[in-house]
């Protein structure tokens, strides 16, 4: 292999108290491929995504992204991996624009102001850019969270239920956006209950039950 795999999960287990959220999971995802992650609530999807995003780390086993171990190389990997989480990561008292500007500045994005304005336009929040996130609907929060993710131009995008809480137009936009990411060479991991929608966007599928991979299928 000339290029290390985008994701390499080796016998990973994650425990929360007495419960195993992810149990002895092993899989790889080649660079440039998109993975669909399915499973019921509590099957370990979110935990897996959080581990891939370096938000938390395995109790046992190893995760390597682009050949780098997550625990050891977290600082470098966080630059390249972006997570669209169930929690929006937003500061409720800051406006949409201020939330994005904070991220842009912390990442050292050049011309932060212009970049933020362009992204707000892209997710259709320009008219509400000055209202605090507290006043946003669930769908609008999702859009803002996506804009936050796009500030990163990640090599790997981890999307936890990206279609949840979006209206039909929003879902179409999201689909277009995921395609755009894929075409741009970004690896995508997509966790969703909408299996058909997800399958049309991805190349591979991993089904989780009680933290284990079940019935592997392409």
């Amino acid at each position, binding site marked *: 292999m000339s290029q290390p795999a985008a994701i390499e999960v080796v016998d990973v287990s994650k425990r929360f108290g007495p419960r195993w959220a992810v149990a002895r999971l092993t899989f790889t995802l080649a660079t440039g491929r998109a993975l669909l992650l399915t499973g019921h609530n509590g099957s370990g999807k979110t935990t897996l995504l959080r581990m891939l995003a370096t938000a938390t*780390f395995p109790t046992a086993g190893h995760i390597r992204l682009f050949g780098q171990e997550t625990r050891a190389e977290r600082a470098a990997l*966080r630059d390249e991996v972006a997570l669209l989480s169930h929690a929006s990561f937003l500061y*409720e008292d800051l406006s949409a624009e201020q939330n994005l500007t904070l991220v842009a500045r912390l990442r050292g994005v050049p011309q932060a102001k212009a970049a933020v304005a362009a992204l707000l336009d892209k997710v259709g929040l320009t008219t509400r850019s000055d209202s605090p996130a507290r006043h946003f609907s669930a769908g609008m929060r999702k859009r803002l969270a996506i804009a936050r993710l796009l500030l990163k131009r990640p090599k790997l995008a981890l999307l936890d239920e990206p279609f949840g809480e979006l209206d039909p137009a929003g879902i179409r936009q999201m689909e277009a956006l995921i395609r755009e990411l894929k075409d741009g060479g970004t690896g995508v991991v997509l966790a969703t209950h909408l299996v058909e929608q997800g399958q049309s966007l991805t190349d591979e599928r991993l089904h989780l039950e009680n933290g284990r991979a079940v019935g592997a299928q392409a």
Partner: protein
Amino acid sequence: MSGHPKILAGAFEVLRKDLLIEWRTRARLNALIFFSLATLLLFSFALGPDSELLRKNAAGYYWLGILMASVLSLGESFRIETENLALDGLRLIPTDPRAVFLGKAFGNAVMLWLLSLIVLPVMVALYDVTIREGVAQLAGLLFLGCLGISAPGTVYAAIASNARARDVLLPLLLFPVLLPSLLASVKATGLIFEGDPMLQLRSWVGLLASFNVLYWGLGFVLFPKIIEDD
């Protein structure tokens, strides 16, 4: 790549964000001001109308008022971080956890300092205090004292915000640890009020500064252990 300038730049952004949030939620700051005023009033009620006693112990009551308010403001500063898991988002941007500590702890110190300055004139009137050694010195000392509260305060608030019964836990953990810097602050403030004929002020301020170095160093090293999930 992640050298010291980057930590300081990150800390500055975190500080800016915290102050911006405080500014956008001014109502909360107002509530805090009235809370500490109420505390100062309660001391004078509890002790009766002995104005001599109040004046003598003014520095102590003043710092107790600030301390009480600090628990609320520290708790609040981490409530905004646990909401929407914003602190996780901050980590993953990525922001160096030490930068988060420096930014938040400094922000908390600034907030407490502003609070103490706003309450100061009322305290002076209420306890009939004269500031003999100059208001500038007092302001500097207040800031040093607030820094001494905010460093361990930020560490402990981060811990308490994720535990059950956090409202009980934060003061329980924090107050005893704060005692040394609080004692030094009270002594030095008292000397500024009463005058400093023996020139003891310098050594108390020096002591307070040393506590600050110790607590900020500990916080800088240990804070990442608290917010990194491994």
